[in-house]
């Protein structure tokens, strides 16, 4: 399985500001995903980020609010823009498995965001 790290692990931000979350993988992967987990809830997919193409956003999520970069096969960023308290959540990146582990997904430790 891939080893995934995220930065920052947590942050407290003011309303109206933006935060960029980084996701680093220890091996090259084609598929990366960004999820949001609101307090006490399950995970909801924000977008799929494949290297060399624009991110694909799920219903209810837009690029202006959650711009994503995927500059290479080991790294991605998610920005939460113009934050409001409703954006307080855990944000997790994940990577799709390769080869024999196709469709298994492995998750980073998450970024816990609190917006005041």
């Amino acid at each position, binding site marked *: 399985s891939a080893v995934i790290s995220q930065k920052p692990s947590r942050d407290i931000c003011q309303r109206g500001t933006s935060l960029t979350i980084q996701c680093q993988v220890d091996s090259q992967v084609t598929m990366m*995903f960004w999820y949001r987990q609101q307090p006490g809830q399950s995970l909801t997919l924000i977008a799929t980020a494949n290297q060399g193409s624009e991110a694909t956003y799920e219903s209810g999520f837009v690029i202006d609010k959650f711009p994503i970069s995927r500059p290479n096969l080991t790294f991605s960023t998610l920005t939460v823009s113009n934050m409001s308290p409703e954006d307080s959540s855990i944000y997790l990146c994940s990577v799709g498995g390769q080869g024999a582990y196709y469709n298994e997904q492995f998750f980073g430790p*998450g970024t816990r965001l609190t917006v005041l």
Partner: protein
Amino acid sequence: SQQGEEDPQALSIQEGENATMNCSYKTSINNLQWYRQNSGRGLVHLILIRSNEREKHSGRLRVTLDTSKKSSSLLITASRAADTASYFCATGSYNQGGKLIFGQGTELSVKP
């Protein structure tokens, strides 16, 4: 929207007992995965079962899949206090491009 429904939403047992969690889903799948999450941290991948499999074991974990009923169960035998966590099922299908759809989760509490 969430595909999976899990029950129970919360489960409290004594150490040494078995814990069973159930997951139901709505559409055709190629695989179903179970994850554990401790106290709002990252998700730990437990087990993947493919649509052509009926049962899978990993240590103290046993997962079953019934595609005719669109349901799966996760059994943890001889539970330990360290098993206290939230457990999620997630479904995947090839035509979803690898993305997963998560159930609501079961919060398991194992009391020593």
